[in-house]
């Protein structure tokens, strides 16, 4: 980041002084080691554990390399623990939540920002008000609501509540508000109705914000634990995150760790591929939140 702003706390003159340069080097080295150990270490540990015989974990936990590499653990986890099945459940739940979130946020923000119906301000206020009520507080009532709509155990029980995400509406609306209004007026003069305006003018211009919301939605959905556990009690329909603690109590440990590895890989790949966007999204949402 120091490159972006020209100069930081430590100036170029400081950097040339030995009593600044040496400690700075030292700090850099220590930080590199520490972040490697703390950030990458646990992931490597999981990868190692997933490919080791269980004996290794118990006899020699500090071992750096498995005594014999057992790729079979992964396939055992995939078939016997049905990790593949749970992973598919996760993908379905996350995918649906992503779509519902994006649709609700985009359509809602479009209506509030561009169409501006009567009571729009009131609705927007009510949406923002939900930001101040922590989601976990209405957990029980939400469960009973889902029960009344007889959505329990169906993926809709996760998809629909995910859509009620005030924060997405907020950042989408701010984005739409910043688009030039003349554009909408010109399109309306040319005879475009609200639906055409939405699909052909607003959506193509909103790609950056759609990407940010999408990434955050997928990462969040992948992490979700409490609500899917409550809403989907049928063991067969549970996502991987909910199934893993249950499996950990009974199954062979190295296959459970193999399952953990499977659960880590998709969000990790997603993060590494889109890290620039995610970093930008976090700094943006964090500052606004």
């Amino acid at each position, binding site marked *: *980041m*120091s490159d972006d*702003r020209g*100069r*930081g*706390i*430590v100036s170029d*003159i*400081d950097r040339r002084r030995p009593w*600044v340069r040496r400690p700075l080097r030292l700090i*850099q080295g220590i*930080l*590199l080691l520490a*972040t490697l150990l*703390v*950030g*990458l270490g*646990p*992931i490597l540990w999981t990868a190692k*554990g997933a490919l080791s015989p269980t004996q290794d*974990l118990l006899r020699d936990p*500090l071992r750096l390399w498995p005594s014999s590499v057992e790729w079979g653990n992964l396939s055992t986890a995939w078939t016997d623990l049905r990790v593949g099945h749970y992973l598919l459940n996760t993908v379905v739940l996350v995918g649906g939540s992503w779509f519902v979130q994006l649709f*609700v946020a985009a359509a*809602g923000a479009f209506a509030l920002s561009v169409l501006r119906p009567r009571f729009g301000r009131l609705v927007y206020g009510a*949406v923002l008000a*939900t930001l101040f*009520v*922590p989601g*976990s*507080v*209405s*957990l*029980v*009532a*939400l469960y*009973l*609501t889902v029960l009344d709509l007889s959505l329990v155990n169906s993926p809709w029980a996760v998809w629909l509540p995910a*859509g*009620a995400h*005030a924060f997405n509406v907020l950042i989408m609306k701010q984005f739409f508000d910043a688009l030039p209004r003349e554009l909408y007026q010109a399109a309306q003069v040319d005879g475009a109705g609200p639906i055409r305006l939405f699909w052909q003018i607003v959506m193509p211009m909103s790609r950056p914000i759609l990407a940010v919301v999408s990434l955050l939605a997928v990462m969040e959905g992948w992490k979700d*634990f*409490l609500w899917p556990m*409550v809403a989907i009690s049928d063991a067969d329909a549970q996502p991987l*995150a909910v199934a*893993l*603690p249950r499996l*950990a109590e009974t199954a062979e440990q190295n296959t459970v760790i193999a399952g953990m590895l499977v*659960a*880590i890989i998709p*969000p990790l790949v997603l*993060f*590494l591929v889109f*890290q620039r966007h995610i*970093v930008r999204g*976090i*700094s*943006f949402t*964090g*500052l606004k*939140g």
Partner: protein
Amino acid sequence: MVLVFGCFAWWPILRSLVLSVQYTNLVDPPTWVGLDNFSNLLADPLLWTTVRNTVWFVLLALVFGFPLPILLSVVMSELRRFSGLFRVLVYLPVAIPPVVAVLMWKWFYDPDFGMFNQVLGVFGLGPFPWLQDTATAMPSLVLEATWAASGSTVLIYLAALTSVPGELYEAAEIDGASIWRRVWHVTLPQLRGVLLIMLLLQIIGTFRVFTEPFVLTDGGPEDSTVTILLLIYRYAFINGDYGTAAALGVLLALALGVISAVYLRLTRKWSRT
């Protein structure tokens, strides 16, 4: 949108209020019980243990988890090499799903086979009971939670640090301010707004801790890690007493609301001066 928010945001909030004055077990039709749920709740000795535990968790999380990201981000913003690599490494724990992270740490904390006791054993320390002792269980949870959450906070601070104008440092340097004084008198005051918001968000977030105590300790040993959300979960989904669970939820919301209001009022004064 109105439909989705209506069903899954506004209605549940209102319904929490209604539920909190009803007795519901899903079998019989709900009956109005007035404030009975609240008085049952206040009479439950576990409630006070829970409140104490949760406040303890929040305080520990602040002591560990608030200064660490500030320190990391300030140092990271000054390093010229590997800055991209650092950002990725710091964020990695955040990318790991919390449940998986918690299961990992359960291994690390294992008194016999765990990484921590093994490594400390090399230096002749321990073995420590970590999660199995009432005194160390909560700090152990906080350590895991701090590890899991710091990365995103660091990224937010890094973004905020770029908006600190370089001229301020220039001026401070010309006035003869040392590097430490520049951090103290320029960087931290410039970040004040973000720091204050993040502190509040962290307090609110840590009050709602659930996954760590649920998976790592299930509230034990001897109820020393039962948190408010875990108690709500137990009331509702283990005892089937939805009314009392909703009442506790309402109390938690009120408490958080009061904390936020007081905090914002106090800091508004402070940030003006």
